[in-house]
Structures are given as C-alpha cells and as structure tokens.
C-alpha cells in the first residue's frame, strides 16, 4: 500500500551494472526519495549520473539490484500502474513506416482504447502538440522535434496520472521548447504528476516544483525549487551606469562591489531587503539606472555546479 499523495516512492533503490566478468558500475545507488502527487519533479544531473537508469527502473525496463520502489502505490513492473502512466523517451524511436495517427492508433490500442474515443483522442493530441497539419508524414520523414512532439502525444493517450519524460526539451527549437513547457505545465495544472529527467537546467528551473540532483549514481541534493535556489541568499541590486564616485558612496553598505559585466551591469549583493532599498535609492540619486531589486536567488545551474564540483572535490 502506498501512502496517499505520493506518486513515486523509492527506498534504497540500487542498480549495479555488470561490466565484463568482474567489473561493476553503480548506475544508481541507494536512492531514497518521494515524489508527491500533482508536482513536477525534476531529476537532474550530468550525463551518466543515473537519471535514465532511475527512470528505467521505475518503468520496469531495468530490474533493481537491491531496494524497492512503488509507482502510484504499486510495485515496480506491475502492468496495473503502466495503464496509468505515460513515457516520453530520450531521442524517441518509433516504427518508421507509420505516420502519426497510425502510430498513435497502435499505442492507443495497447491501452485498450478503440473506436471513436481513440480517434477523437488522437485528433485532440495531434492538435495539442502542433502536429495536426503534418499528421500524414511518415515517422522516417520527421525531424527530431517532430518525433518529440509525437512522443508526447503517445504518452498522453491514456490521460495518465503520472508522466515520465526523459530529456523532453533536448533537440527542440526555442518555440518547441516553450510549447513543450506549456504542455508539461498544462498536465500539472490538471492535477497530474510529472517526472522529468534532464541536464538542461535552464529548461527545468521554470517548470519544476521539486528537484533532485544526482551525480555519479548518488542522490546529492533534493528539495523544492524555492528551498534550493533561496538557500543562504540575501538581496541583490542590478544596476548600470555606476560611476566610481557612486561606488565609493555605497562602499559602506556593500563591501564587495564587483566589476561591471560587458553590458556595464553591476550586481550588488546586500544581506537584507532594507539595505538593498537604500542602495537602490543612492544609485538612483547618483544618476545610475537600477534594473532590478529583489531576492538574490541562485540559479539551478549555480546550485548544480556547486553540487557537482563538491562531488569532484570529494
């Protein structure tokens, strides 16, 4: 029995690959985590960190060496939970000789869909992923982005409670990436759970509610986006046109003033909100242009680099 509200739960989940006769490689080791229902959960890490291994374990495509996991309250490999999930693989491959509706019809029947219900669902999904006007193309004629869109469509056929996406924005053009993000956010807004694996941190940050960072087969850090990006940070003021005189003037409030970047923008960090407002006032009074005043949030990329470099330093 899985607890209510938890879509995925892993307990010491470990996958060790055999390499040759005696060699081994830990794909993922002792992974214990929970993914609450209705959230977008991002599993991030560099290539080879264990993201896809984790995903395949959860899908029953790999078998754990030790540990256990539940998906939607059911044990790994059960056909019952597979009827309630969707999966978008990395670099999706499909039967090349089919076109998009044929492909979706094939996958739809595997979910037990048929007739008018299936046909309506296919038309609706092709519209959603922007493939309605190119539906007659065969898969072998698709670009990577088109394959990705069809992959999303097939994953949504059964209106899943939980959808797994492996590198969903890889290979997409900026418009495609935005469209993908909107689709994912739309899925979440309907109360579904999304499990994303990616190393494209800029795409993950605006989408994810919660993130886990894995590296070299180990879970290094997990938390909500707010917790991870906010941790230990104060406030910051971004401004341009900061003259040396102004620098001297605000020197007492901001001890370390960095050099301006190539655009002439200086980022000034203060320990609290009050000082940030005061500094901004001084800058405006001195003729500088204040671009932003707000919490000094780190980016996911910065957090990620800290974690990975910390690992390298170990």
């Amino acid at each position: 029995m899985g607890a209510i509200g938890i879509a995925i739960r892993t307990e010491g989940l470990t996958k060790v690959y055999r390499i040759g006769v005696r060699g081994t490689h830990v794909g993922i080791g002792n992974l214990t985590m929970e993914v609450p229902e209705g959230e977008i959960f991002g599993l991030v890490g560099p290539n080879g960190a264990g993201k896809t291994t984790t995903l395949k374990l959860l899908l029953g495509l790999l078998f754990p060496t030790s540990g256990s996991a539940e998906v939607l309250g059911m044990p790994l490999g059960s056909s019952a939970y597979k009827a309630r999930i969707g999966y978008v693989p990395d670099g999706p491959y499909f039967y090349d000789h089919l076109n998009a509706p044929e492909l979706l019809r094939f996958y739809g029947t595997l979910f037990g869909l048929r007739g008018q219900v299936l046909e309506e669902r296919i038309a609706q999904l092709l519209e959603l992923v922007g493939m309605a006007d190119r539906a007659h193309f065969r898969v072998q004629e698709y670009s990577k982005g088109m394959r990705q869109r069809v992959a999303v469509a097939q994953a949504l056929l059964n209106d899943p409670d939980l959808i797994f996406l492996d590198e969903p924005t890889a290979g997409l053009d900026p418009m495609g990436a935005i469209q993908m993000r909107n689709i994912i956010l739309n899925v979440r807004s309907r109360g579904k759970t999304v499990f994303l694996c990616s190393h494209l941190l800029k795409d993950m940050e605006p989408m994810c509610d919660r993130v886990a960072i894995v590296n070299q087969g180990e879970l290094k850090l997990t938390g909500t986006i707010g917790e991870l990006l906010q941790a230990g940070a104060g406030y910051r003021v971004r401004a341009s046109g900061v003259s040396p005189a102004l620098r001297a003037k605000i020197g007492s409030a901001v001890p370390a003033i960095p050099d301006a970047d190539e655009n002439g923008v200086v980022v000034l960090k203060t320990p609290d909100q009050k000082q940030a407002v005061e500094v901004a006032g001084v800058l405006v009074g001195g003729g500088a242009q204040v671009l932003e005043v707000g919490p000094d949030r780190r980016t996911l990329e910065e957090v990620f680099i800290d974690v990975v470099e910390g690992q390298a330093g170990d």
Partner: protein
Amino acid sequence: MGNDGGASLLVRVIGIIAALLGLGCVVAAYMDMFSQRLLFAVLALALLGVAAVLFTRPNLRAIYRVATATFFEARRRRFLNVVMIFAVILIGLSSFFASLSPSAELNMMLDVGLGSIRLCGMLIAVFLGSRLIADEIDRKTVDVILAKPVRRSEFVIGKFLGAWITVIAFLLIMGAAFLIVYELKAPLLVRKAQAVGVQLSLAETRGNVLKATILIMFEMMVLSSVAITVSTVASWIFSAVASLTVYFAGQLASYFHHMATFNDPHVQLINPTIKFFSWIMYRIIPHFENFDIREKIMTHDPVYWEFIGLTAMHGVLYSLVLVALACVFFSYREF
C-alpha cells in the same frame, strides 16, 4: 470482492481441469491409445490453450496489435522481398529442366519448385525471426511498448505470431507462383506422356502440393520459434546461425535415431557416448525432415491427411514450448 474471488477460483479450477485433460490427450495421442492420434493431438492443443489463457489472462488485443504491427513492418524489409524474388525466379526456372521422360520432368519441377519455396521460407523464417526482437531492442522501440500495459510475454507472443504470419504471406505468394508455373507446364507434360502411352495424374499431385505447402508453413512456424527464442538471449547473428544449425540438424533426425538405436551385438562400431548424444539430439531437435514430403510425392507414396495433421500438431506443440521458453528468457532481459 467475494464474487470476484469465487469467479477467480472457478476459473482456476476450470483451468486445472483443462490442463489435466490436455495432458491426458497428449499421452493418448503419443501412445496412440485409441487409434485417433490426430483427434487427441488437436484436443490436447485446444485444452492446453484454454488452460494457458485461463491461467495467464493475456491481453489478446495487445498480442493482436503487436502481431499486426510486426507483419506490416516486416513486409517492408528489403531482404524479404529480395528472397521472394529469388524464389519466384527459381520456381520459374523449375519448368525449364529438360529431362528424359515427362514424369521425370514433372518430378523435377515439383522437387525444384517446392524445394525453392522451402529454402526461401527457411531464409525468411530464420532471418526475420532472429531480427525482430533484436531490432526492437536496438531501435529502442521496445522501451515505449513495454512502458505500456503490455506484458513481456504478450510482446514475445505477438512478435512470434507476426513473424509467422509474414512467413505464411510470403509462402502463399511463392506457392501461387509455383501453382501458375505448374498449371502452365503440367498439362503439356501430361499430353507428352500420353503420346508415349504413360498416364500422369495431376489431380493427385495438386492435392499433394497443397499438403506440402501446409507442412512447410508449420515447419517455418517451428523455425521462427527457434529463431525468436534464441534471439531473446543472444544477438541476431548468433540466433540466425543457431537456427540454421538446428534446421540442418533437424533434417538428420532419422540419422540420429538410427545412431541412438543401433544395436547389433556383433558390431561394436558406435561409441556409447555418441549413442547417448544421438539419443539426446533425436529427442531435443525438431524433426524437420518430417515436414518434407517431396520424396513421397515423387515416388507416389500416399500422403494421408492424418500424417499432415499430426506433423503439424507436433510442430505447433514444439513451437508453443519454445515460445514459452522465449517468454521466460525475455522476462529477465533489461533494456
């Protein structure tokens, strides 16, 4: 819940009864207890099939979809079309063999024509069977399918059926080509034979060609199951080589039987180890030579439907065991 439990128990009881009756029929057919071997073989298959369905509750729709997708994908493979064109050319050439007598020429046509169908059917069964699952794994299309509510065993059974349907389709095309050649050439040979006072019966030969083609279909079913089973644990190349080896060993089944049962106290030619090995081989390998009735056709030996039925049932049982093994092997594979 109570009703479900009761229904489930009833289903299991029916399944157990069907399985026991099925096994009883296997024994009855094998021992030839009531001189109705074919009837018992068919009953055995039906009852064991019912038992298997009741116990495993397969998603038949998923199996059907995987099988049809396999067929439509397989028929586009270039090598199959090349093999088929090669077969049609060989069949066409079978009518150009000049011979001493019309009956010998007819026999030559039957031998070469049916032999070509069998050879090309074998190539298709081996290479298609070996590559189907391997290609799904290589192209990662299997990941998406197995992430859906499709059991691994259903996938394997669907692939096997898809392969067999494809082989049958190609065999039917080759068979049709042979029939056309036969119908064009055979009447000429009959007239030629009549001119020298010899009677050739085409009606009997047509029936035998049909029987031979049916047996080739079941022979290729066995071969496809061998190829698919090996491909679940090894590369497609290994699977193709192993399947070809099994196929050719299967042509020597009677030779292995002779070696295993050779028992002349005055002659000590065969080493006991070789006898034992021959016995094992005879018991394990499919007896592919039984599926080849060309010699019987050419020597005008009667080919009874009961023989055809029993040989086909033997092939089906053998294939079922192999496909069951393939399902077990595939359930341990990782992707």
